């Protein structure tokens, strides 16, 4: 006993006392699916690229590459996407949604300024894929297939690539230098593009010039052919007509033709053709585009005639808003009953209990030199007609969950399959089809798939989704008050005389501000709160944003979970 006076035991640390035994519930770090990612039709990992962008200029390229992993059109997206991510954003319930689209545009434009390219890392597979249609869906598929090592040839009927991005979306929403830059960045990766090449018979195209035997007798149309698989995405370019009783001299055209003509420079409706007063019939985004284009072409009056109310308009709210700012007039609850030179007969409608418009028998006249029909578009399905197994319904091609048509090896996507018709959805189809085609090609022998198929058989199946990160799971106290930034917009008076881009982009500092408004719902962003608030020092910090619960000492009080801003810690019952 050589201990000091009155001391009988050695001094020890309380660390010998494992207080973890008190616990009935334990904190567990989770990764939840943020609502933005869940809503993105292109399947972008939005939260991840915002996280990268938050760190400032040094990480912008990493953020851009994260977008490019899913979507090769950030600069286009930043202009034309209807932002389902922002509609879903949890921050909307706190102050206003994060301007995800603004940040995407900034990153997309920054990539063009810096000339960032995407390398093809995969070894060539020797497989050849035909893509029919150089629209957003076809280009997206070509991009992803190329990155997977496949050889892609795109055939398109148009004079320039881009599909509806070029021939449907006016320049004031999507400047052509931006579109060209992003399209050619894909083509420069080694994609072969054949323009002015309308594919009328997919089977003949696949067989190639060397085919000799009768196509209908061939068991495998890919055998000895030019290609090993095909993705068809020809879009929906045929303006839907409606029967409208019309006088001989009534001038009627459809919006698709009008917008297409604008782009080709033919401008069939310039000045005298279009007239001074233009009526547009329909309530979708195309109707807004047509009316706003007419205004820019010199029409002093552009009137949108729609049979329901504004709330029921399929057009996106921002487009309606911008159209109204530009002096576009709206006639709600109206149908065109008769058209003749210089005027239209409009019948007033009223909504019945089911919200369907019913005629009232009340008529009025509307002066209009020209009627533009924007009543929706149909797909030209002739390219797939006669292909064994391919089925159609309601004017679109039937496809499985992997986007394969009824014929093995032939896939379809974009506006010609049943889905919402937006650029973002089409780009998402391209990605999905590329993965499915890759899995299908692998199932035909050759090599293991780049993206491992996880579904039954050989189909590609996405990994299981995580639980959704709900607003209620956040502790919003910790997010600094920060109202959204607003993108600059051209003044309405200047817009109607020019096709200059209406909406401007954010500069570097405002884009960074906007990225930092992200709340990182459901996924740790390294705020150290759990590490700080634990009264038992039972959260270990292994590095920036890397933590571990020390279950030897965690008493299970739940403070870390309660004070986690983003809801990335869950209390789970202690395993018995």
């Amino acid at each position, binding site marked *: 006993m050589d201990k000091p006076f009155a001391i009988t035991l050695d001094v020890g640390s309380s660390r010998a006392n494992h207080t973890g035994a008190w616990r009935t519930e334990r904190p567990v770090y989770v990764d939840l699916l943020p609502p933005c990612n869940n809503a993105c039709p292109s399947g972008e990992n939005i939260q991840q690229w915002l996280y990268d962008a938050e760190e400032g200029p040094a990480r912008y390229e990493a953020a851009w590459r994260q977008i490019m992993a899913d979507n090769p059109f950030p600069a286009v997206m930043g202009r034309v996407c209807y932002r389902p991510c922002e509609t879903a954003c949890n921050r909307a319930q706190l102050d206003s949604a994060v301007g995800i689209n603004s940040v995407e545009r900034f990153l997309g434009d920054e990539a063009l300024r810096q000339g960032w390219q995407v390398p093809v890392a995969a070894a060539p597979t020797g497989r050849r894929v035909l893509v029919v249609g150089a629209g957003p869906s076809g280009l997206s598929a070509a991009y992803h297939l190329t990155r997977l090592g496949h050889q892609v040839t795109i055939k398109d009927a148009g004079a320039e690539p881009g599909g509806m991005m070029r021939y449907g979306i006016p320049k004031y929403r999507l400047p052509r230098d931006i579109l060209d830059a992003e399209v050619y960045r894909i083509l420069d990766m080694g994609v072969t593009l054949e323009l002015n090449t309308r594919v009328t018979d997919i089977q003949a195209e696949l067989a190639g010039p060397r085919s000799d035997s009768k196509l209908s007798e061939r068991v495998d149309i890919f055998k000895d052919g030019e290609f090993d698989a095909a993705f068809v995405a020809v879009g929906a370019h045929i303006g839907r007509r409606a029967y409208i009783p019309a006088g001989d001299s009534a001038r009627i055209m459809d919006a698709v033709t009008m917008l297409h003509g604008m782009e080709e420079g033919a401008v069939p409706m310039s000045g005298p053709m279009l007239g001074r007063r233009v009526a547009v019939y329909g309530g979708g985004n195309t109707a807004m585009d047509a009316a706003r284009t007419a205004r820019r072409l010199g029409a002093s009056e552009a009137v949108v005639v729609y049979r329901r109310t504004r709330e029921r308009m399929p057009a996106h709210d921002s487009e309606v808003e911008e159209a109204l700012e530009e002096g576009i007039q709206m006639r709600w609850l109206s149908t065109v009953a008769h058209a003749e030179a210089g005027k239209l007969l409009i019948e007033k409608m009223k909504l019945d209990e089911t919200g369907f418009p019913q005629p009232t028998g009340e008529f009025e006249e509307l002066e209009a030199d020209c009627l533009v029909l924007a009543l929706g578009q149909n797909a030209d399905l002739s390219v797939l007609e006669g292909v064994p197994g391919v089925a159609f319904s309601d004017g679109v091609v039937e496809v499985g969950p992997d986007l394969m048509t009824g014929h093995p090896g032939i896939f379809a996507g974009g506006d010609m399959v049943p889905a919402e018709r937006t650029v973002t959805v089409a780009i998402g189809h391209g990605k999905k089809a590329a993965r499915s085609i890759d899995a299908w090609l692998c199932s035909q022998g050759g090599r293991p798939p780049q993206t491992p198929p996880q579904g039954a058989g050989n189909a590609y199946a996405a990994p299981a989704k995580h639980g959704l990160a709900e607003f209620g799971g956040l502790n919003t*106290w910790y997010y*600094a008050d*920060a109202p959204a930034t607003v993108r600059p917009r051209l003044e309405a008076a200047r817009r109607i005389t020019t096709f200059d881009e209406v909406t401007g982009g954010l500069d570097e500092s405002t884009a960074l501000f906007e990225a930092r408004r992200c709340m990182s719902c459901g996924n740790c962003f390294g705020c150290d*709160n759990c590490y*700080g608030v634990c009264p038992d020092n039972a959260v270990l910090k292994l590095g920036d944003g890397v933590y571990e619960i020390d279950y030897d000492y965690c008493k299970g009080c*739940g403070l870390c979970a*309660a004070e986690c801003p983003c809801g990335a810690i869950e209390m789970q019952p202690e395993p018995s």
Partner: protein
Amino acid sequence: MPYQRIKFYQTGSLAVGNRLLAEDQRSVQSTAGRSNALTCGHRACQGCGEALGARYALDAVHRATQGQMIAVNATGCLEVFSTPFPETSWQIAWLHSLFGNAPAVASGVAAALKAMGRTDIRVVGQGGDGGTVDIGMACLSGMFERNDDVLYICYDNQAYMNTGVQRSGATPPAARTATTQAVGREPGNRFGQGKNVPLIAMAHEIGYVATATVADLRDLEYKATRAMDFHGARYLHILVPCPLGWGSAPADTIKVARLATESGLFPVFEAETGAVTSSTPIRHRVPVTDYLRIQARYAHLFRPRERTEVIARIQAAADRNIARFGLMPADISAERTGLPAPVPVTSPAGLGLEGR
């Protein structure tokens, strides 16, 4: 606003850490190498506010003094749960004597260090509200009067929790404790009693007096660090919720403290030589019922019927704090703009004359 809020849009300086900040802007608690003055294995209850507050404050003092510090502890929960013989949770030089004499022992330690010429070593005295407000009051007042070179920290959980939740001089009106049961005409603790030690400390005109809570780490660290800029007597009063005594959920410890400040019931401010120099504005004001409802010690205010007249008196006390300490500056958008808010300075005379 006593310290510069970081103008930064995500969590700014509201969360413990921030991966986007430069090293020198980060909080002590966010650093992987913090000293953990109070380490694991202590026997405090789940969600103990005092264990948390003590580590927050002492780690900050530890950094400010480069580890050259001695802590003198009064009897109380903090002492009992951290040092059951022969174990200790303290990773700093630490001394315990009696319940009521911690300020006097701390004065003695400071005097001894001075005699030894070790003025580089700083002294911290600390205790709960029982040891500070009631039992140690005379020693504390003497330490203030002599202006001994000690920072005294009171971890205020508003009752004698260690011995079974008996009322202390810091127990708020209407709160139920073992000795102020929720029975009779005025259930719970009586109105018009108790002591406000931060104001008593200010009346001694010592160099530095401040209040803080475990809900605002950055503010707490700033004040513990700022206190070490002074020599002579200093006083730091930290509100530390007690899940056991307050009847709040262990996971709600920080939330309760946050609601105490956001309702105005616990004013967060700092003062130099008897005058308030700044106060922390309320960010999102809440009615006192938000604070009261989540604590079982106030359950009798809501069941079997809502005691609106009692709640109104508590709300009036919160409103008085807001007016008195300038907790709602005219420009409440200060937080949004990131600009410092104008803070009215109250004269020490005015503060001393207003009773509770």
